[in-house]
């Protein structure tokens, strides 16, 4: 028993540390459901140089242009807000920032950087798949709609061959609706979560449609050349640094594309 006690103590401590790595309100209360004429997806806020911006996937703003109106699910209803869009220099990066001219969520610490993220580390991605989420306790948090859906995966790969479009690949099961949601990770040194990237979507794979008798045949070909689209389990996201750089460039008035 004497020898066992330190082991039990360490196990208890490890358990205590583990629970602390669940996404905190610093992350949860920054995520919002977004609706535009193009799509309904997810968005979240970050603070850059003391100003709050709403971040989402660029494809959620298809046809939005430089300025327009978006809708946010706040307090149980859709609320319209005028926004000015900021896009990264590379069109490949599926991220956009919206400057609403005012903070719309809490501004609890949440650093937008992938610095310190480990290959293979567990990450969380948050959003509203199929408009699902957890009901909010009462009274509602100001500027907040619904607790987002959390899903998790590990960082499978960093693709930085194109320095203007760094991609994060996660091993996770993404669903429609997560687009524009944050990819967050626990940064042990700072003891806080960080936003590493933005969910773009997931990689599809084509699965052949087979006759029942061919199900156990690995060489069977698609029946009548029919295929179905399946989720490969690979989540694709872009590094948050692209939009932070774009925001800073826009605030300095040095946006190379003049947006």
């Amino acid at each position, binding site marked *: 028993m004497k020898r066992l*006690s*330190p082991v039990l*103590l*360490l196990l*208890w*401590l490890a358990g*205590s*540390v583990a*629970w*602390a790595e*669940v*996404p*905190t*309100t*610093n992350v*949860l*209360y920054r995520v919002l459901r977004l609706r535009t004429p193009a799509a309904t997806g997810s968005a979240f806020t970050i603070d850059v140089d003391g100003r709050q911006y709403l971040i989402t996937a660029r494809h959620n703003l298809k046809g939005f242009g430089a300025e327009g109106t978006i809708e946010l699910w706040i307090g149980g209803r859709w609320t319209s807000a005028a926004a000015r869009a900021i896009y990264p220099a590379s069109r490949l990066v599926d991220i956009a920032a919206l400057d609403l001219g005012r903070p719309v969520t*809490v501004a*609890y*610490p949440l650093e937008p950087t992938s610095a310190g993220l480990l290959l293979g580390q567990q990450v969380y991605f948050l959003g509203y798949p199929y408009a699902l989420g*957890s*009901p909010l*306790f*009462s*009274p509602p*948090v*100001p500027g*907040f709609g619904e*607790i987002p859906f959390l899903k998790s995966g590990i960082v499978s790969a960093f693709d930085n061959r194109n320095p203007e479009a760094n991609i994060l690949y996660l091993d996770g099961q993404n669903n429609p609706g997560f687009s524009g949601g944050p990819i967050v990770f626990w940064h*042990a*040194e*700072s*003891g*806080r979560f960080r936003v590493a990237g933005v969910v773009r979507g997931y990689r599809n794979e084509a699965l052949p449609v087979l006759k029942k008798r061919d199900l156990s045949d690995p060489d069977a070909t698609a029946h009548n050349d029919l295929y179905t689209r399946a989720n490969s389990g690979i989540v694709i996201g872009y590094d948050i640094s692209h939009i932070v750089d774009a925001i800073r460039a826009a605030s300095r008035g040095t946006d190379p594309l003049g947006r």
Partner: protein
Amino acid sequence: MQTRSMQQVWRGALAVIALAATAMALYAHFFDATSRQEEARAAALRLEDALVESRSRLKSEILAELRAELAAGGTVAGAAEGPVPDAVLRRPDRDEDASGALRQTMDPTGLGPPLTLGRLAARVGSLAAQMDESDRALRRDLEAFRAATQRELDASSTARSLALVALVALVLHLLTTWRIAG
């Protein structure tokens, strides 16, 4: 002749008194030593118990301290308290809230300095050192007590041996005196 007889009587009486006193002293000493040994054994057991109790108390204090540090007071912010940074959302226990609605629970990592594994390891190391030091101090006390008891027992044993010698000498003296008188 009468004076000589009186002297023998007095000498015999004094010898008998000395014999009786020595025997009684030996008897008393024997039982007293036995009871002292019992007492010492009981005290040693009490010290051992105290050592065990101290260890468990120290451990529980350490655990309580660590729990307090980790839970940062274990504050559970109710819904009425509004949003709280660095909190996690937790479904309450059934006896806390039957509705099962998520509640904010303070995440200790955001309240003080970052709680890293390294920091935890250092804390555990420091607390383990405290426990070792406390153990050593108690063991030192126990050893000192045992040594003192042993010294006392040795002295007592010597005194007992000397009293025995005196008793034997007295008996011989008495026998010799009575034989000469006879």
